[in-house]
């Protein structure tokens, strides 16, 4: 699949949940280090 025109800025504004159910802003993941984000289809 071709890489879509990704807006990293928009992506960074999104929040995901950590193990405690707390919101984590995605941009915080590449704030200080290069981030490798692996998206898995499901937990199972």
């Amino acid at each position: 699949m071709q890489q879509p025109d990704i807006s990293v800025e928009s992506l960074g504004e999104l929040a995901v949940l950590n193990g405690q159910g707390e919101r984590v802003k995605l941009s915080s993941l590449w704030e200080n280090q290069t981030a490798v984000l692996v998206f898995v289809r499901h937990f199972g």
Partner: protein
Amino acid sequence: MAELAENVNRFKEKNANLAVIGSGDHRHFKEFREKTRYDGLLLSDPSLAAFSLLGFTGGITGVMSVRSVFKAVSAFRQGHRQGSVQGSSLQLGGAIVIDVSGAVRYYFASAKAGDHPAVDELIRALDRSSRSDSP
């Protein structure tokens, strides 16, 4: 997932922030960790907003391709068991590497279920990224 779980330290050695993001309930993280032995950062995107923005969404054709069925059978034979499915079964996975400047250094979208980037490919992306940062 098993390959990634076994190579978490390689990402640490590269000073990279590795995160696995799924779409299921964060209360299933413990079960996921037990099954996969992945002990790195685990996050959930239940709204699928990030999946969608990154184009990691697919329909039933991607999820149920013939190749993915063969892969599932092969994984089963090797002893890997998929437990109860937690999360959306209709989105696909993928990977992205983003450096501190916000530049995308690597992008991979799964075309089918079971399709994922090799750890070596992700490590090479980190190497390329650090080389281009060097003065």
